[in-house]
């Protein structure tokens, strides 16, 4: 039995660090860190490649669980759900009732469950950075607010520079630039405690992960 986590960007490290900090057991068959990185996680780098990888993994009968993490970005949650849903339904998977968007095939011999998490929270438009921004602990409130205020002011003065939805990306990176150890990549910043892994959004993500994957005992 194989399981796959297909991610659009480089979100996998930050997400796995949050889950590690929450002490959840690894997916069944992927206790080995190298195997986890090499086989469980597929970091695609673009939404087109998410579709490509998803189709190939659906074709692979050994794969029984697939989790997909994509950014809603400016396309929006509805657009993303529709795109992935169409692809899955064209491959004979049916949508099921669940707290998270989930599809299953009707095949006891070769079962497949696919579940989708759309960053930041399956509701709003945005990116991983929106998700992480919400996880900034109160201890770092001053840095967060400073970054937010200054980015807002900057974009007010230069409104043509960037789309509104992408402003949050800048705020999250600006926040990290103000830390004691500035400019850490997201995964390392989670390890350093610059994001709060106990936040309710992280709890929700853990719920999705446990719903999607079979975990080691």
């Amino acid at each position, binding site marked *: 039995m194989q399981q796959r986590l297909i991610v659009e960007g480089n979100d996998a490290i930050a997400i796995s660090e949050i889950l590690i900090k929450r002490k959840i057991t690894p997916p069944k068959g992927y206790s080995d860190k190298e195997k986890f990185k090499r086989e469980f996680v597929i*970091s695609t780098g673009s939404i087109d490649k998410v579709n490509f990888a998803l189709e190939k993994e659906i074709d692979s009968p050994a794969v029984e669980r697939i989790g997909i993490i994509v950014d809603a970005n400016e396309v929006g949650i509805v657009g993303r759900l529709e795109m992935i849903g169409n692809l899955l339904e064209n491959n004979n998977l049916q949508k099921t009732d669940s707290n998270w968007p989930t599809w299953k095939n009707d*095949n006891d*011999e070769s079962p497949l469950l696919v579940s989708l998490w759309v960053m930041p929270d399956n509701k709003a438009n945005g990116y991983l950075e929106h998700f992480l921004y919400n996880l900034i602990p109160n201890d770092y409130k001053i840095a967060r607010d400073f970054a937010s205020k200054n980015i807002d002011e900057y974009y007010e003065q230069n409104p043509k520079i960037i789309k509104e939805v992408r402003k949050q990306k800048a705020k999250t990176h600006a926040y990290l630039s103000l830390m004691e150890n500035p400019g850490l990549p997201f995964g390392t910043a989670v390890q350093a405690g610059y994001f709060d892994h106990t936040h309710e959004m992280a709890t929700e993500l853990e719920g999705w992960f446990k719903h999607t994957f079979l975990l080691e005992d």
Partner: protein
Amino acid sequence: MIPSIHIKNFLTFDSLEIPTLKRINLIGGKNNAGKTSLLEVLLILTSNGENRVLNTILKNRGGLDQGSLTTYEELKHKNSLKKNHKFDGKLLDRQQDFIEWMARGVEREEITNRLYRNLSEDTLDKDIKRILFVLGVQNENEAINKWEDTLEVVKINGLLLTEKHGKYKILNKTSERDLSPSREPNLSYEHFSFVPAYTKLANIEKVWNTIVLTEDEDLVLELIRKVIDPRITKLSIGSLGAKTQIDGKPVSIKTLGEGVSRVLLIIISMVAAKNKYLVIDEIETALHYSAQENLWNTIFEYAEKWNIQVFATTHSRDTIRAFKYACTKYSKNGEIDAQYLRLQKSRAGNFEAIDFDYKNLDQSLDLNLEIR
């Protein structure tokens, strides 16, 4: 070239359809996915069902006692298959289906043309004599006339069949000698070259004997200089061993390592496969990944030049990667007459071949997807 294949009820397969076969086909898949069975089907198909090929395959699968059968018809009934073998009985039960498969795989018009073509050759080979015998005629013209009146009799892949109510029955009797498994260490026949997963001196020697002292000998030297060592000037292969000359000194092939023997076997087999089929089982055996790229480049270059259709199996990601590099190198306008196929049982439990053309393969490897 075989453009496509549909196998039904034969060996491992209930059904396997590969709608497109290309000039170079690399075939992967887990154990028991049907890779070897597919190669065996290709050998039977490309050899026109030659008895020795069929029997060698049966023998290799542990399914035939040498000299125990006198006709193919008996294959269906005689309890000659070894017991307690996973292959036990499978071919017997499915022999009729196999024949049907072969019949369905060839259009009747093509069958007719093939028979005419055979019959119009100056020298009547053994099979043609059999046809004349079964048709009860004395000569070619009489056979053609008879053929036209006897549409229910067809010859497919070396077997003479009669059709009744859509079922095919084998007519031609075969001698005990024909039914004996080949004692030769590997299969190299009129229509294909086969490279087994293991490399033995006897394999190399057998293929070399078909090439030595012909103009193709120079081609072998040309290729081994390209792939193994540019300093090589001579090659000698005999029952006492294989030697080459490097910098004017004799060097035993053995001392150059197992990988060199493997490359040598593949190269010699390739030269022997001009205008034919080259079938390689587990191409990566004993080959370091760095040697594979060079080998694939050579296969791509000469398969095109010499009109060879190549089928190779692999378990190795390195092999697939080296194959992809060669695809990139030899592609024209982003297209290449080559593909990687992964054989597997689908979620519905059927055998299927997932095809990864050059672009899909490139993307799959970039994403580190498990494609073996």
